[in-house]
């Protein structure tokens, strides 16, 4: 963290009595509410941003529960219907020997969502504390959460393609289960939660520390 030493010399827009646009970087006088360049709404620090982060995160976690309890995929073979949950599907792939794909499915639908809940919760908690925590570490964590979150949607697409393709009437049919809906909702809610997080708050602790 060699950069951490230099942060004390940093002048931020807020400290200078100005407002920076998060969309395009343009700097405005403190009273302005709409960016003159890109038209985005301006806010030095959004006081309610953390509330929205928690609310969407909670919604995402709630939706993740039925996503794991109920079946994601209904496979019918000669009249026999087999129900597969998210984890069940990954285990089945693993037993069939497709370890690589099993790993992708398991990572996208279990590891990433749960890791995201923990990461967003940690970032939201740490943004409140005035203690200086490694800014770069949290910054990287935030970037990873923003980047990787949407990839969880892959499981919903797999279900969509399988149900569209495997339709051999009596012999074999695949139908989507209710869990697909709640899983898609869970991914969307946590994406909104992460988007509402203001990464500038991660750096504010430095300023309050050296004033």
């Amino acid at each position, binding site marked *: 963290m060699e*950069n951490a030493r*230099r*942060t004390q010399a*940093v*002048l*931020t*827009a*807020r400290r*200078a*009595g*100005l407002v*920076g*646009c*998060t*969309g*395009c*970087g*343009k*700097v*405005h*006088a403190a009273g302005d509410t709409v960016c*003159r*360049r890109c*038209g*985005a709404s301006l806010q030095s620090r959004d006081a309610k941003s953390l509330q929205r982060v928690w609310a969407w995160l909670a919604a995402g976690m709630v939706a993740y529960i039925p996503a794991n309890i109920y079946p994601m995929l209904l496979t019918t073979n000669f009249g026999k219907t087999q129900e597969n949950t998210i984890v069940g599907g990954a285990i089945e*792939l693993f037993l*069939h020997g*497709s370890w690589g*794909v099993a790993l*992708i499915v398991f990572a996208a639908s279990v590891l990433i969502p749960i890791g995201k809940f923990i990461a967003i919760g940690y970032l939201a908690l740490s943004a409140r504390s005035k203690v200086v925590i490694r*800014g*770069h570490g949290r*910054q990287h964590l935030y970037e990873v959460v923003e980047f990787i979150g*949407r*990839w969880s*949607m*892959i*499981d*919903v*697409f*797999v279900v*969509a*393609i*399988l*149900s*569209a*393709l*495997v339709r*051999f009437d009596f*012999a*074999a049919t695949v*139908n*989507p289960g209710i869990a*697909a*809906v709640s899983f*898609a909702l869970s991914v*969307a809610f946590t994406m909104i939660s992460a988007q509402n997080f203001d*990464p*500038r708050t991660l*750096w504010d602790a430095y300023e309050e520390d050296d004033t």
Partner: protein
Amino acid sequence: MTATTPESQLDALIACPTCDALHHVTVVIPGARARCHRCGTTLMAPRTGAMTRIVMLAATAAILMVAAVFFPFLELQAGGLSRQSSVLGAVLAFSEGWMMPLAVAVGAMIVALPFARLLAITYALAPMALGWRPAAQAERVFRWAEAMRPWAMAEIFILGVAVAMVKVAGLAKVTPGPAFWAFAALVLVTVLKDNFMCRLTIWKTLEERRRS
């Protein structure tokens, strides 16, 4: 500095969108990359001819999207039976009963939003690539394109197709159709285009061209 700072003075500054650190705007030569000195976020990374390339790649991807939607996507053969599906077929997989909203969402994420984003980028940047003044409402349209970015999931869909192909590989023979290759090419072109796009540079150029 107070609230009465003249605009010209403010225009010489740029605030990092990620950490709020103030920087003086300097000329960044094409190919170079200006990073925030506190958090390391890329502020500006102009490339020579970026506008032209972005517009051309976006238009290419939009045409490929049309092909990807209408041509057969995948064919499945098992025991003398065969079944074809287009991309729309995958969207309509959820169209039965109360899962309808998910069908709408999937359609938006893999077709409508990526396509709308490509059109929006072409609309906002094409006049500038030609050296003209920006089109009417170009700022608003480009802001929409940026807002759509996380929700346009074409590249995730194509990986989902790969996973699905492995899943059924043991039971049936899967043959990719022309739409599959169009979609794969579309994803590559989109990724290439996003590499050329530098948000802050585009906003700066939009503003300068609007004034001139």
